[in-house]
């Protein structure tokens, strides 16, 4: 038993490279998967924390359509309601930083909402009195360094990005004097009666809106993690498969010497377990690093796209580590199942020659083709009848896996054809030999196919998105300047001052509303050529702008239209208004529903809406000068006046960061595929000598053989790239037309970028050439004595 184990393990000592590949593949697979999981876990934890802020996951709230006036609060208290006021608003600090400021009344706050210990009054007094005291978690505190804010103090247990403050001080800081965002209801106290008109009771919410909104983003990440994991497993599978194949004679000898099949399997199992634990631990370490590297970008994306606060630093979670080791074990089992099965059914007497394996694989090829076709049919069915984001991802998985399984079948058919057409003896041998190599290389080629297709698919999606998005920004950000005055009084003065100086000054007004029971944003839009000429409409009723100005029609964004199946002409109802849809417009980078009404109708519904924000039209070459004058004449601050270019720049920056993570994972996946290729070629090159030596003996130089080996690798890579192109485009189409619609609510037109394909194709060839370089050079440098040994050794 000990001797048998020692014999089995001696193989790895003789092929350290194979062992390295096995461990590396497993470690990489685990790393990419658990890295993504770490990011997701961090984000989820902070959403849960945010949901629990002020006990929102347990406390009911009272809210109105807009802010609740202070008098209403006082009246409720008088009527016996045990409520506590809260203001909650984002405070912009400068271009990069903002803080979600929450103002509370520590004296009436219900017990479940108490999050900060004020100690023996040493914090309470400065908290209550001007200039106030802001509690924030240490990381947020560090981020606020140098900001023009009241004194800050660290408090554990607060979600990131939140500042907790006394309500009175917060109202002053936010310019919300006399207004309250919502009221927290003490669960212990009975409700004294029905709520007055205009107020509604909001039940506690265990899952924050943010968590729901970001679900699809995290699903995206998970899908990518899974893809990388699968690509990594290809390496593991091929390393294990070849190691088992090479040890086949040893297995036979051991069995012939009386080791039972069960003992043999047990030993191999123990060996794999050891590797899985080793590589899994290394993978966890690597995964933690990957996650820590990517998390700041992910955090920035989530903040920019969804306003979700996720800390930029990673916490270590034991559960995550256990899951990572588990997935490493599972991956090892999955990728070694076939090999173990073969060992269990190993006939004691059978020729242990490479072609026997190839012939068996040809039979397996048929089964593989059937499985591939089945998966592709499943993908087609999901495309036709699938609903929802999960179905979309299953569709993606079926498409990719089906295509990957089909690849060796297609390549084998192509090689057979080439062999039939070949005339010269060397050409014929070349094709026959390539066919024989195919089973050993097909897993690496499948990994390459997936990585290339993912690259083409995701690249096409991102580039299409970028093209659409920049065009859309040009339309959407049609004003030269955007004014956001600190208060109503300043706003009025600026507008009066602007009247003789600007071509047009149009208010940008918004309020919260509801469509079919879902929260939505309501905007008012002036009737002006700026909108008529620029607003990015996807579908419209004739005379859309006159309809909108008339007040009986509304515009809705694509997200809302897709979610609710709305089209121009359909009826739509908001609280206090009923009408029809005049048009659907595209609205990227925003997950929520939007409705636009004519300005007059908007103010009829929301007479109290703030009019502090305006869009300013002016001749583009005058814009900079006008901005200068405005800043000189009024105290607008950095945020008060923004020009079109910086707004576009900011939006594009959010966009780029959104896909920075995707791009990073993309590159990693391609790297892993290159490694898989290298691993397979290295391992195969060890088995190649008996196949090459006869041809060499009959008069081919080593140099020529080496060139042919290189050519073979390049041809296979090129064939894989050729297959990856249609697959990648199909993937891009599914991402743009199915996944995006399900995840974000918008559909994007697909643009193709053939130049990118050329680059990627060249990259794939270079990667393949690099992967083949070491084994090919090894071959070219063989001494004749090494080749002759092949003829001397019993095979």
């Amino acid at each position: 038993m000990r001797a048998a184990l020692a014999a089995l393990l001696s193989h790895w000592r003789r092929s350290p490279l194979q062992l390295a590949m096995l461990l590396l593949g497993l470690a990489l697979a685990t790393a990419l998967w658990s890295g993504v999981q770490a990011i997701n876990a961090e984000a989820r934890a902070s959403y849960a924390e945010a949901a629990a802020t002020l006990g929102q996951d347990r406390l009911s709230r009272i809210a109105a359509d807009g802010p609740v006036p202070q008098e209403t609060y006082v009246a409720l208290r008088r009527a016996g309601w045990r409520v506590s006021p809260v203001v909650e608003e984002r405070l912009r600090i400068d271009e990069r930083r903002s803080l979600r400021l929450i103002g509370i009344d520590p004296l009436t706050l219900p017990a479940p909402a108490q999050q900060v210990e004020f100690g023996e009054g040493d914090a309470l007094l400065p908290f209550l009195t001007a200039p106030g005291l802001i509690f924030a978690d240490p990381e947020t505190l560090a981020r606020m360094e140098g900001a023009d804010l009241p004194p800050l103090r660290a408090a554990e247990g607060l979600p990131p990005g939140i500042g907790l403050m006394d309500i009175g001080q917060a109202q002053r800081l936010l310019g919300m004097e006399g207004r309250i965002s919502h009221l927290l209801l003490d669960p212990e106290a009975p409700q004294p009666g029905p709520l007055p008109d205009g107020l509604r009771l909001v039940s506690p919410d265990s899952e924050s809106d943010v968590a729901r909104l970001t679900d699809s983003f995290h699903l995206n990440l998970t899908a990518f993690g899974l893809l990388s994991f699968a690509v990594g497993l290809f390496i593991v599978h091929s390393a294990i498969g070849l190691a088992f194949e090479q040890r086949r004679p040893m297995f036979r000898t051991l069995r012939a010497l009386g080791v039972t099949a069960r003992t043999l399997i047990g030993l191999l199992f123990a060996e794999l377990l050891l590797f899985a634990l080793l590589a899994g631990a290394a993978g966890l370490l690597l995964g933690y690093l990957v996650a820590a590297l990517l998390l700041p970008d992910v955090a920035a994306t989530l903040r920019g796209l969804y306003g979700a606060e996720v800390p930029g630093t990673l916490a270590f979670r034991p559960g995550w580590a256990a899951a990572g080791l588990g997935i490493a074990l599972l991956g090892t089992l999955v990728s070694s199942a076939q090999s173990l099965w073969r060992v269990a059914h190993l006939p004691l007497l059978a020729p242990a020659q490479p072609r026997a394996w190839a012939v068996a694989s040809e039979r397996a090829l048929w089964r593989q083709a059937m499985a591939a076709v089945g998966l592709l049919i499943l993908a087609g069915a999901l495309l036709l009848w699938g609903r929802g984001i999960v179905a979309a991802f299953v569709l993606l998985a079926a498409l990719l896996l089906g295509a990957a399984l089909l690849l060796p079948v297609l390549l084998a058919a192509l090689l057979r054809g080439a062999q039939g057409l070949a005339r010269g003896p060397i050409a014929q041998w070349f094709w026959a030999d390539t066919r024989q190599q195919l089973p050993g290389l097909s897993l690496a080629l499948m990994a390459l196919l997936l990585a290339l297709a993912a690259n083409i698919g995701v690249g096409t999606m991102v580039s299409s998105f970028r093209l659409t998005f920049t065009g859309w920004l040009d339309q959407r950000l049609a004003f030269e300047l955007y004014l956001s005055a600190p208060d109503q009084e300043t706003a009025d003065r600026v507008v009066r001052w602007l009247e003789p100086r600007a071509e047009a000054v149009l208010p940008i007004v918004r309020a919260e509303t509801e469509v079919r029971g879902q929260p939505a944003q309501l905007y008012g839009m002036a009737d002006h050529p700026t909108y008529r000429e620029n607003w990015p409409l996807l579908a419209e009723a004739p005379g859309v702008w006159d309809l909108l100005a008339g007040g009986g029609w509304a515009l809705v964004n694509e997200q809302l239209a897709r979610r609710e199946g709305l089209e121009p002409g359909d009826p739509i109802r908001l609280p206090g208004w009923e009408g029809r849809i005049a048009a659907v417009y595209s609205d990227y980078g925003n997950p929520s529903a939007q409705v636009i009404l004519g300005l007059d109708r908007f103010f009829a519904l929301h007479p109290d809406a703030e009019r502090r924000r305006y869009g300013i039209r002016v001749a583009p070459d005058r814009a900079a000068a006008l901005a200068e004058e405005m800043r000189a004449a009024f105290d607008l601050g950095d945020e008060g006046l923004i020009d079109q270019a910086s707004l576009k720049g900011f939006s594009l920056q959010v966009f780029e960061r959104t896909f920075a993570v995707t791009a990073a994972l993309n590159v990693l996946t391609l790297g892993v595929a290159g490694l898989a290729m290298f691993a397979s070629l290295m391992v195969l090159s060890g088995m190649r000598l008996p196949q090459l030596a006869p041809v060499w003996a009959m008069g081919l130089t080593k140099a020529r053989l080496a060139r042919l080996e290189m050519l073979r690798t390049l041809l296979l890579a090129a064939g894989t790239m050729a297959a990856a192109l249609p697959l990648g485009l199909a993937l891009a189409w599914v991402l743009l037309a199915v996944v995006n619609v399900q995840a974000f609510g918008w559909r994007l037109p697909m643009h193709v970028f053939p130049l990118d394909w050329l680059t990627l194709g060249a990259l794939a060839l270079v990667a393949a050439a690099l992967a083949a370089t070491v084994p090919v050079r090894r071959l070219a440098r063989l001494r004749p004595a090494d080749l002759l040994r092949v003829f001397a050794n019993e095979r």
Partner: protein
Amino acid sequence: MWTVRVKDPSDKLLSLEGVSKSYATGEGPVQVLAGVDLTLAAGQSLALTGESGSGKSTLLHLAAGLDAADRGRIVVAGHDISQAGDAERARLRRGTVGLVFQQFNLIPSLDVAANLAFQARLAGRHDPRWQAELAETLGLAACLHRYPEQLSGGQQQRVAIGRTLAARPRLVLADEPTGNLDEATGDAVMALFLRLVDQTGAGLLMVTHSARLAARLQGRVQLSAGRLA
């Protein structure tokens, strides 16, 4: 039919002068050949005998241009290959020499028919009728479309012999070609070799342990202690 060569003893096909060869091993260099002299004329057949491990295969490999000698001169069909480069050796193996290995090294990815034709096609001397006759005589006609791994040891050896004979090389080097064959098949194979020598004027150097087969050749040399006797 075949071009019949004039049997001229001065027509030297292979000559070795003072050839030495040693292999580097873990325990230092092992001297295998220590000054071997040998000549083989066209149309001549020679048996090479010697104990196991005496260096017979090594000598054949050197003569075939597979490896380079440490010292000495090797001339094959008028070409001195002692100093030849990789490409020149390859050309020689391809066009002039036919080597039947002790371990019959067939090309695993090609079937029997393609294996039989491979060397002849490389040399540009493919003759389907001659190949068919060889396959018939060697008893391979029934397994032309099988792959090497599906053959028995003796069948594989016969394919290896057929492959060499099919190319009709000027110099035939055979390393125990009948080692795996029964007596009758061995005799038939021997007859084929001799027919080639007779009809094309090829030279034959054959390693064999069988005194009976050695007796059918024109001469016999023995290798011991790195030299020919």
